[in-house]
C-alpha cells in the first residue's frame, strides 16, 4: 500500500497513525506540499484530480478521502460494533471535516501562511472543541474514554490530529479537561506514532538507566 504523504499534514498523519495502530506497513512517497505545492501539479492531479493529500493506492484502488482510507485500513472492531455505533462513527467522521475547516485552517494560516479569516477559523475551532469536550465528559460519566462505544474507533483517529494540533493555530487546549484525558488515551495506544507538533508520552518509557560516558563512544 502506498501513501502519498506530507509530513506536516494532519490528514496524512491520520493515515500513518491508523496504519501504525493496525500494524499495516505503508510505503510513503513524500509530496512537496510546502513550499513546492506539488499536490497542485498536473502530474499529481492525474492521480487525484482534486489536488489534495493524502492519496492511498493499493493495487487498482485509489482513495483520495482520508475518512475512506481509515475505513479501508481498519479492523472491523474499529468501525463501531452495532448499527448505532457505526452510525455514531459516521457522525464523528463528519465532525472531523469541521475540525479540518476550522482548527486545521487556523494551523495552516499561522504556520504556513495560508490566507483566510483567522478569527473565524479560531472561533469555529473553539465551538468544535467545546462540543467534543462536552461529549467526552458525558462519556466519562458513563465510564467510557473514547468517542463511540468502549474501545477506540476510526472516529477517534479522524478527530485526534486536528484537535491535538490546535495550538499550532493559536487555539489552546488547556480549557478542555476531557479532551486532555482522551488525547492521552490515544497517545498511549499500542503502536501509536507521533507527528511534529504532537509529542509522544515520554512517561510510557521508564526513567533511563545510566550509560557509559559519551567520551567512551568516540
Amino acid at each position: 500500500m502506498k501513501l502519498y504523504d506530507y509530513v506536516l499534514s494532519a490528514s496524512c498523519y491520520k493515515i500513518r497513525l491508523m496504519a501504525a495502530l493496525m500494524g499495516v506497513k505503508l510505503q510513503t512517497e513524500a509530496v512537496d506540499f510546502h513550499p513546492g505545492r506539488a499536490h497542485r501539479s498536473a502530474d499529481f492531479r492525474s492521480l487525484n484530480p482534486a489536488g489534495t493529500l493524502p492519496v492511498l493506492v493499493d493495487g487498482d484502488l485509489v482513495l483520495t478521502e482520508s475518512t475512506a482510507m481509515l475505513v479501508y485500513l481498519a479492523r472491523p472492531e474499529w468501525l463501531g460494533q452495532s448499527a448505532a455505533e457505526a452510525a455514531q462513527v459516521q457522525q464523528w467522521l463528519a465532525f472531523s471535516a469541521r475540525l479540518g475547516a476550522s482548527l486545521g485552517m487556523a494551523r495552516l494560516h499561522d504556520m504556513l501562511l495560508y490566507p483566510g479569516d483567522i478569527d473565524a477559523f479560531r472561533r469555529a475551532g473553539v465551538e468544535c472543541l467545546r462540543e467534543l469536550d462536552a461529549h467526552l465528559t458525558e462519556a466519562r460519566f458513563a465510564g467510557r474514554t473514547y468517542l463511540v462505544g468502549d474501545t477506540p474507533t476510526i472516529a477517534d483517529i479522524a478527530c485526534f490530529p486536528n484537535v491535538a494540533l490546535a495550538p499550532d493555530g493559536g487555539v489552546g487546549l488547556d480549557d478542555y479537561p476531557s479532551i486532555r484525558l482522551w488525547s492521552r488515551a490515544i497517545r498511549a495506544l499500542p503502536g501509536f506514532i507521533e507527528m511534529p507538533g504532537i509529542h509522544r508520552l515520554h512517561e510510557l518509557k521508564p526513567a533511563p538507566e545510566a550509560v557509559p560516558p559519551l567520551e567512551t563512544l568516540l
Partner: protein
Amino acid sequence: MSIWIANGLSQDLPPGVVMAGAWRGAELAIWRSASGRLSAWGDRCPHRGMRLSHGFVRGETLSCIYHGWVYGSDGGCRKIPAHPAMVPPATIKAEVYQCVEAGGVIWVAPAAVESDAPDLAGLTPVRSVTLRADRGALARVLAGAVAEGDLWRVPALGAVLALQDRAEGLGLHALCHDAAQRVAVSRWLDGVLRLAEEGALA
C-alpha cells in the same frame, strides 16, 4: 476574594498527569505524581523558560519536555540529562505554590499562606469549563445566583460554581448536590457559556 483559587476538579487530574493552571495572573503547572501527590508550580522551567505544563510525569518527578530536566516534588532539580553525572545545585528550583484538594476540587494558594482551602464536601464534582466573558456577563445570565467571593451558588439547579480567572477567560468549576444531575448540569453549563458570551457581545 479568596486567597485559595480553584484550579480544576480532582477527577480531571489522575496520577501521572500534568496540566496548566492559574493563580490570579500567575501561570502554573499542576501535576499529580504516580503515588497521587499534588503539586502546583510556576509554569516555567528555570533553565530556558519552557512551560512545565508541557512536561511529563515519571513516578514522583516532573520533567521538562525541552531538555528533560527532572524536578522532585519539593520543586528542586534532581537531574540534568545533558550532564548525567552532575548533582544539580539546590538553587535550581521551580517556584512552588501550595496545592490541596478538598471535596473533589483542586485548590492553589501561594506558599506563604496559612489558611485552609474551602471545602465543598458533600457535593458531586461535575465539570470545568471556560467562559470567554467576565463575571458581569455571567451574573446577567445567573440572575438567581448567590455569590460568596469566587463561590457562586445556583439554588434553582442545586449547583455550585467555583470561579477562576484563566488566560482564556473565566474558569467555572461546577459541582452539584444531586449526583444523578451530573449530565443535566453539564449540559446546562454549555447553555450558560453560550448565553453569557452572546450577552457580552450584544
